[in-house]
């Protein structure tokens, strides 16, 4: 046990080499996808990671979970260093940290039934099998708002929002402590986005989950996060509570990001246009 922080990231770096050369590839430069970021997340809270495309937020997620090996830096989960652990060493830890992906159409294996998709993590980690497995999967499906009769259906029979719920059920199957959600609602219709966000909120309260919520939509991030970190070009340029970052931004890029978000209110939008910031 480590104190209030479930996750502590310090100076995390992930560089991808750019190779060039006529005969032999030499590394001539690097893509500094994640260029030294540090943050921590308290147990039961949500950190929102905001950034545009190319900011490095998705790479950061994968590096934190050791899905891609960090170039350097430290990632402490419950006080234990996990950066650079081997796959075998990571295996028991995988139960504690899970990921929800962006594309509800691509992240589910189309050839498996959803009962199988949600139950696989349980089976693979040897947690349950047989009828106990089925019972737990049905419970999960119910908890995320899907009818248990859907157990035997295939992903293509569901809408985007429903598939995202399946993805969430799968992520929760092993009762993880940390869930990293990488753009979980970006691909969904606006009216469905609100449903999924509310669901994630409810699940956090019920299961005491800790979230790292990654998105490019700062409005959505602001709603669900306790703290926000803004990423740009591989670095965190601003960090603070959600209200601090959104109402009193200090960094220029954050300000630029906030002004760029369209205000869904014609009079306000006009007022903002008339008064140069």
């Amino acid at each position, binding site marked *: 046990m480590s104190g209030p922080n479930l996750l502590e990231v310090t100076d995390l770096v992930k560089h991808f080499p750019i190779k060039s050369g006529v005969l032999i590839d030499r590394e001539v430069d690097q893509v500094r996808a994640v260029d030294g970021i540090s943050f921590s997340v308290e147990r039961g809270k949500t950190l929102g990671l905001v950034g545009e495309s190319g900011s490095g937020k998705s790479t950061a997620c994968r590096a934190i979970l050791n899905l891609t090996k960090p170039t350097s830096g430290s990632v402490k989960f419950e006080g234990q260093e996990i950066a650079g652990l081997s796959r075998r060493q990571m295996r028991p830890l995988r139960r504690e940290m899970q990921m929800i992906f962006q594309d509800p159409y691509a992240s589910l294996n189309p050839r498996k039934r959803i009962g199988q998709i949600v139950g696989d993590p349980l089976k693979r980690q040897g947690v349950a099998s047989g009828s106990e497995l089925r019972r737990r999967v049905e419970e999960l499906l119910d908890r995320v708002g899907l009818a248990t009769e859907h157990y035997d259906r295939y992903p293509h029979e569901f*809408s985007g929002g429903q598939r995202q719920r399946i993805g969430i059920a799968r992520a929760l199957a092993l009762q993880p402590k940390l869930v990293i959600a990488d753009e979980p609602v970006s691909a969904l*219709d*606006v009216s469905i986005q609100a*449903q999924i966000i*509310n669901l994630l909120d409810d699940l956090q309260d019920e299961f005491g989950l800790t979230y790292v919520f990654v998105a490019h*939509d700062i409005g959505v991030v602001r*709603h669900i996060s306790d703290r926000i970190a803004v990423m740009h070009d591989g670095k965190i340029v601003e960090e603070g509570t959600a209200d601090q970052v959104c109402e009193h931004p200090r960094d220029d890029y954050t300000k630029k990001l906030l002004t760029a978000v369209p*205000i*869904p209110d014609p009079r306000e939008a006009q007022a903002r246009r008339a008064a140069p910031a």
Partner: protein
Amino acid sequence: MSAAPLLSVRDLSVSFATEGGRLPAVERVSFDLSPGEVLAIVGESGAGKSVTAQTIIGLTRSPNARIEGRVELRGTDLVAAGEGELRTVRGERIGMVFQDPMTSFNPVHRIGSQIVEAIRAHRSIGKQEARGLAVEMLDSVGIAEAARRVDDYPHEFSGGMRQRAMIAMALALEPEVLIADEPTTALDVTVQAQILGLLERLNRERGLATILITHDLGVVAEIADRVLVMYGGRVVEQGTLEQIFYDPQHPYTWGLLGSLTRLDRPRPERLPQIAGAPPSLLALPEGCSFRPRCPHEFAPCTELPPLQARLTGEPGHCDRCWLTPEAKREKRQVAGQIGLEAPSP
């Protein structure tokens, strides 16, 4: 209202024959577009907004499509027009910009050559002259070093630049109407702001009438003059920007407005949401298609409400909801703002 509308769509219906049956993608949609006006068509996936837009220039014509109604561009009916006539309209009188600029350009031809191709399909001018025009257009949409970049391939442009190039290509022949189908959805928010700024400037400086299709009400608020809200293939509400945002008459519109996150307001406890999901067009509910998700459903809703102006003094503000205007004003207030109360479990 001054001159006659530039584009007039009357009872446009588009349906497709599919394996699952007849799919009514668009049902009796009508609207006008005046010169210099920005009309936003708002809706979620399956609402029929893209199909409407693409049908205007005949892109949805195919053996299994049935298209009915009229689309009049300054007197010419585009639905009845032959392919040859449509081709003279496309690009020359109506330009179109699509959602994903990466896949909307042919990856094996240079950007300049694709713009030149569009120009020379309608004007008999030489390659060099057309190329000069292409460079001018790229420059006017804000692409730096246009003379050099005109020879780049699409994958050498960033997402925002590609979309600018798309806009440049669509406007190269100075059409009167621009149809932009989700032009900023695939772009970062800072780039989106730039593209919207560009569209707004083009509208203002050239009097370019624009049909903007989007699901993002924030985008609508920034740039639209009038709004059409579509759901399940039908128009459920239409009106001016002010009317739609401050006096919305249809529960679906309330739901959309309510479920938006707003940076300029304190965070709500829970995001107001619309229950359920958009309907499958193959199995539309009887009567009002929003019925299953509407907490205010009552007896008459089993009959489809006609699209009508129900407020005195506002003939342009129409909706498809049986509730009285008074009932609407009352029911749409949720926790001090406009929204949709979810049906109680």
